[in-house]
């Protein structure tokens, strides 16, 4: 799976939880999931569990702590898939 494919899937998974839809239009690696996309912090766990299901990976709490931006999420998934 290419990085672009992972990025696209990440956006699809995050989309239902996003409150600031405008920020999704110009989303980049640096887009902060909580601050820019206005995802409720308590929903971040659901997003990461959806990553686990979609990419068939297992994410530990410590790994999840490093996920602040869309790029962090993509990098984590890339690392788990490699």
């Amino acid at each position: 799976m290419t990085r672009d494919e992972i990025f696209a899937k990440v956006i699809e998974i995050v989309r239902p939880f996003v409150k600031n839809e405008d920020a999704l239009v110009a989303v980049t690696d640096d887009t902060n999931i909580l601050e820019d996309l206005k995802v409720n912090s308590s929903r971040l766990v659901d997003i990461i569990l959806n990553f686990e299901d979609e990419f068939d990976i297992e994410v530990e709490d410590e790994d999840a702590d490093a996920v602040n931006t869309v790029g962090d999420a993509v990098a984590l998934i890339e690392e788990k898939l490699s």
Partner: protein
Amino acid sequence: MTWLPFRTRAAHAFQREAGRLAALFLVLPIAFILRVLMRYHIRDVSRVRTRYRALVKESDCPILICPNHLTMMDSAVIALALGGSWWYLFHYSRIPWNLPEYNNFASQWPTRIGAWLTKCIPVIRGGRREDVSRVIKRVQYLLSRGDTALIFPEAGRSRSGRVEADSVGHAVGRILTSVPGCRPLCVYLRGDRQRTWSTIPARGDSFYIDFQVVEPQSEHSGMRRSRDFSKQIIERLVCMEEEYFAGR
């Protein structure tokens, strides 16, 4: 036991001992403010305290208090209701560590010092994941030493005035799954005049309080297990709220 850097452990030890000393001068005045100046009344308080003290006596297990959240005074009222001011003077470790919102309690020096002396670890809710995680690890460490902590599963005051199951955070489950033997204690507290959320309860309000020990279960591991635990805690609070309104 959760690993923490020496510096953080030393800081906790210092905060604990400074708080122990300050408790001699703070616990009774705080109780005086709540009971006399604010005229708060907790119904059946002696029954609640008897039950809580029996629970503490039953085992040395750490206790994680998980209450509903409607006002900024909840943690103080709950602590007073469960233990009682005199009891805490002799059971200092049972004064719960509390995680107040940084912007409410620790953004200015006077309140920051007060929070520090009363076993508070301020946290920025919805802040950077690493920072929130650092605070969670500190609570895990304190609980694994046998201390008591208090965390609001809803991670903020309920705007609707009812337990908001959808806003349950991950922290409670994460702590419970990582501290062996930790007992979650669901606490439901509500003033009779409390309609929705507020800064403080109305002066002269009379409080209902009840608590239940929960034994969360999950067939999963990792984050799913933590999430299951958090959900079971908040679901119990929802049930306790239903019991409260059914009994009115």
